[in-house]
């Protein structure tokens, strides 16, 4: 009897110990369902969206590299062992291109993070001004990612909410959305961002977040891309009326760490060289390789003769953009614009902490001039705006770059495009400009001769093969396979 009693006790002990609790393990991690509760969580969620901007597949490299190599500005270095870059140079683009796949991946990762903010933050109990600001920032970033995607790929899937935990087919197998609807969403996002974001941040630790001016500036650029000239001009005017922005007297101040997020910067991807991972550092890809000096000069692209010869005599921006010697070493002209020599020694250039400006105030002025000219010919406001940019490029030398005057509408159009080219070499702008003005084929052939053979279908890039492989509802752009 006693034995049976002991036996029963042991059995009860052992089965009660074994209850389900043993399998309920706390992950020592934060996860989707226990996060997004406080103001700090909301800030963390928006910060994670910003962090995409410094990814190598975004403003760290890919987004501007393909603009240089795919346009008339640069040639990929002949000896560069990277067929994926040469595809942009030679216009034999493949759907397997790793740069395009990277841009697509990074952009949609950024979009998914912005979508989380827009879904989760409205329900968080927190300071309402701060909440409005964070939602505005998320709108801005989502708009920016979509604006890049729609210009590079045309119709793209439009995702506006985060995926559910049991991932339905409707969430996976998305169709491409007509680009006019994507543009509608971008305009809505930038418009709401302009309402939510403050004019400026006064705390130095906050500088670099999206502002009202950044949202309006990007909105103007969207309208310009859509050839909505009146709206674009009026939006530019709003940016100018904010009274926040002005041009630096010295063009090179734009690329100095000491001047980062200064009066000319409308929006910039924030880089930083410190004790952190490489994502926060930017690679100055145009520098030459010189052993012992530029050990890490990757020299991916070199300016075309056409670009070098396009500068007017005495244009200060030419010497601020290119160099062909460094102390005793001489070489072919290379782009060194983004290298701040006050902050980084030559041997440090593999990893710099300089910001990358997505938009500078000089672009607002040039967009304003262009929009006015397209809407009603070269008005005096249009001349004032473009000549303000030219005046700064003289760098005090009154004998060069005379003010423009008395141009026909068509000549003014050409002059604006030229001015944008001189101003924004290596700033991730040129290929978009050639596409939206319809000059891609003519200008690329003019600069590169027979080697590059762009055609009309190249006005958008191929949808990445990985996405086509994993989503049977996705279609390829015409003439790409």
């Amino acid at each position, binding site marked *: 009897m006693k*034995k049976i009693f002991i*036996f029963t006790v042991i059995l009860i002990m*052992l089965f009660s110990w*074994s209850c389900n609790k*043993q*399998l309920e393990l706390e*992950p*020592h*991690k934060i*996860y*989707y369902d226990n996060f997004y509760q406080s103001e700090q969580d909301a800030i*963390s*969620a928006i*910060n*994670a*969206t*910003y*962090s995409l*901007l410094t990814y190598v597949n975004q403003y760290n490299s890919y987004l501007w590299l393909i603009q240089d190599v795919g346009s008339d500005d640069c040639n990929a270095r*002949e*000896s560069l*062992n*990277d*067929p994926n870059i*040469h595809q942009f140079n030679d216009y034999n683009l*493949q*759907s*397997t291109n*790793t740069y395009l796949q990277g841009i697509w991946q990074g952009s*949609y*990762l950024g979009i*998914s993070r912005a*979508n*989380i903010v827009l879904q989760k933050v409205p329900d968080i109990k927190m300071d309402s001004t701060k909440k409005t600001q964070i939602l505005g920032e998320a709108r801005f970033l989502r708009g920016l990612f979509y604006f890049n995607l729609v210009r590079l790929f045309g119709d793209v*899937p439009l*995702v506006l909410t*985060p*995926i559910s*935990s*049991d*991932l339905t087919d409707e969430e996976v197998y998305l169709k491409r959305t007509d680009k006019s609807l994507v543009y509608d969403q971008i305009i809505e996002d930038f418009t709401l961002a302009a309402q939510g974001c403050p004019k400026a941040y006064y705390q*130095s*630790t906050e*500088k670099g*977040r999206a502002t009202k001016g950044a949202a309006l500036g990007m909105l103007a650029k969207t309208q310009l891309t859509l050839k909505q000239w009146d709206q674009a001009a009026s939006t530019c005017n709003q940016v100018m009326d904010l009274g926040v922005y002005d041009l630096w007297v010295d063009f090179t101040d734009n690329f100095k760490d000491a001047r*980062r997020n200064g009066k000319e910067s409308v929006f910039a991807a924030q*880089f*930083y060289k410190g*004790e*952190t991972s490489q994502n*926060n550092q930017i690679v100055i890809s145009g520098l030459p390789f010189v052993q012992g000096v530029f050990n890490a000069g990757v020299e991916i692209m070199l300016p075309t003769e056409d670009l070098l010869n396009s500068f007017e005599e005495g244009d200060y921006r030419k010497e601020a953009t290119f160099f062909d010697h460094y102390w005793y070493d001489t070489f072919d002209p290379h782009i060194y614009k983004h290298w701040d020599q006050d902050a980084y020694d030559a*041997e440090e250039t*593999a990893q710099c902490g300089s*910001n990358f400006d997505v938009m500078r105030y000089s672009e607002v002025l040039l967009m304003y001039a262009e929009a006015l000219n397209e809407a009603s010919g070269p008005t005096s406001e249009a001349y004032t705006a473009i000549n303000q940019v030219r005046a700064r490029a003289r760098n005090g030398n009154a004998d060069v770059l005379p003010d423009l005057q008395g141009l026909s509408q068509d000549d003014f159009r050409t002059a604006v495009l030229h001015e944008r080219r001189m101003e924004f070499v290596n700033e991730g702008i040129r290929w978009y400009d050639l596409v939206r003005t319809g000059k891609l084929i003519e200008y690329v052939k003019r600069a590169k001769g027979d080697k590059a053979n762009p055609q009309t279908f190249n006005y958008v890039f191929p949808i990445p093969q*990985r*996405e086509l*492989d*994993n989503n049977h509802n*996705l279609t390829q752009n015409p003439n790409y*396979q």
Partner: protein
Amino acid sequence: MVNTALTFNPVLPVYDADGNYTLTDPNADAWLDNSVAVTRIVDAVSNINRVLGNIYLEYEFIKDLKFRTSLASDIYHQTQDMYTPRTVYSGSFNGGQARFATTDLQTILAENTLSYNKKFGDIHQINAVVGFTFQNNKSRSFIDIATNFPNDVLGYYGIENAEDFPSIYASNAESAIVSYLGRVNYNLKEKYLLTVTGRVDGSSRFGSNNRYAFFPSVALAWRLIQEDFIKESGVFSDLKLRISYGKSGNDRISDYAYIRTIGGTTYFFNGGSPASGFAPQVPGNDNLKWETTNQFDVGMDMGFLDSRISLTTDYYYKKTVDLLYNSEIPYTTGYPVYLENIGSMKNSGVEFSLRTANLVNAFKWNTDFNISFNRNQILDLGGKTLYVNNDTYKLKIGTWSVIQEGEQMGSFYGLEADGIWQLDQDAEAAIYGNEPGDFKYIDQNHDGVIDANDRKIIGHALPKFFWGLNNTFSYGNLTLDVFIQGQHGNQILNSNRFELESGNGLSNASTDMLNRWTPDNPSNEYARANRNADYLKMSDRYLEDGSYVRIKLITLSYNLPNKWMSALKIDNARFYVTGENLLTFTKYTGFDPEVSRFGFDNTRMGYDYGGYPSAKSYIIGVILNF
């Protein structure tokens, strides 16, 4: 390392004029390390401390009914210290780099069983067990990187002198398995044997709705040799028929994989104001559950001539359902992969194992031979095709393998090569944007473009069969063992050749490229030298027959006579000489046909990229038992 050695500029000396290591090749843009320097001067030390413990208590309540409880633990601590000095390329631009890693693992296993064992006369015998087991695994790891050392003198011992600590990684994880099990063995007259088992397993790796699963099995054996009509026939010395069916489960996924976990990142506003960000890293999946395998097996054990010959044959059919797989999903979801239960797969095959004692006198010769034929097929993937990519390392060839309904695991996927464009084909070559001397591929859909739509399954990484043969010869105290193994019908992706045969002159090339296409040498195998060659196209050009026969092991050993040893109080002393991987017969041109870059990952089989080959080794040893 092997890849670095293969692709490093062969003209560059290991040392430069000053006697320092040549760090890198100024003419190449892929930064290559000097493999001699890396091998000789990167200092890496690993230490492992491990404690294993086991206690148990056994108690017999009444006759034949026993209770047993046991507790086992395994505590493992590992440190890995490494220092990369500035004299190798990878350490040259950060002033020397040290890496410190600590890993702690702790496993506890508790088992409680109640067993009953009873024989009823000579006819029935019953053995029954019920029990409960519990296992918990904890792991913790910590990695710290330090850079910018004042000099290389102290190596990793100089950590407190390092200027920067650019990154720290830490991870904590825990998992648990709870099982309730029962088993009954029934033996009737030593002739019929029946085993029935059932277990319920619960795993912490699945969401709360799907943690538990039931896994039953049943096995029957008939010892025919006990039947008079077999005994009397005199043909067999042993004969047994076996048949079984059972279900088993697999929870081998990472801990917490079903949860949408959130990870940290930092963005620096305005030149260094850290703004910490948090975002999901994996999509999570509430519906994850056990992967289960249903296995049917029928087999026969036969013995002849007093068991000098014994033969075992088996046929099996395994169907695995709800496979746990990290499926690639479109980036539009915000995630690259999704861990899910998907589809089903079968494996069926036959196995033979033959054991013979060929000579049994003073000179003895025994032979063991086994051979397996397996057929694998994906039965269902819910209509999906899963693509296997390799974009993680510098060789970006994209999709190279595919998992598709009706096909095998390990199916290579790419273009079908068709030699080289020749001079008289220049017009046709131009349609594809090629020139004579370029690689030619088959345009599967005849659309005048070679692209992703021309890809197909071009080979298989799974062998048709594999075998092993061991012969043991002994005479007196001298024994010779020879083990040979082989496999046939599989292919290997020799991806080293992408670079070695690229013909772009930017990395070292294979000597085969001396035979490259030129107008005077219309090679149909190696393309022309071309600086801008698009050489990263996956095709069957790089697939090679991976069949091989290898003399894996030869051991000659000598046992010293016991009478000498007893005087020295040594029970047994054995001298031996072993040679491993002595000789291989294969058509594979890489270093080693027994290669797999991705280890035992059965979705990424047969990929060779800079694989470190199996070493040919000789061992001389002595074993003493006291």
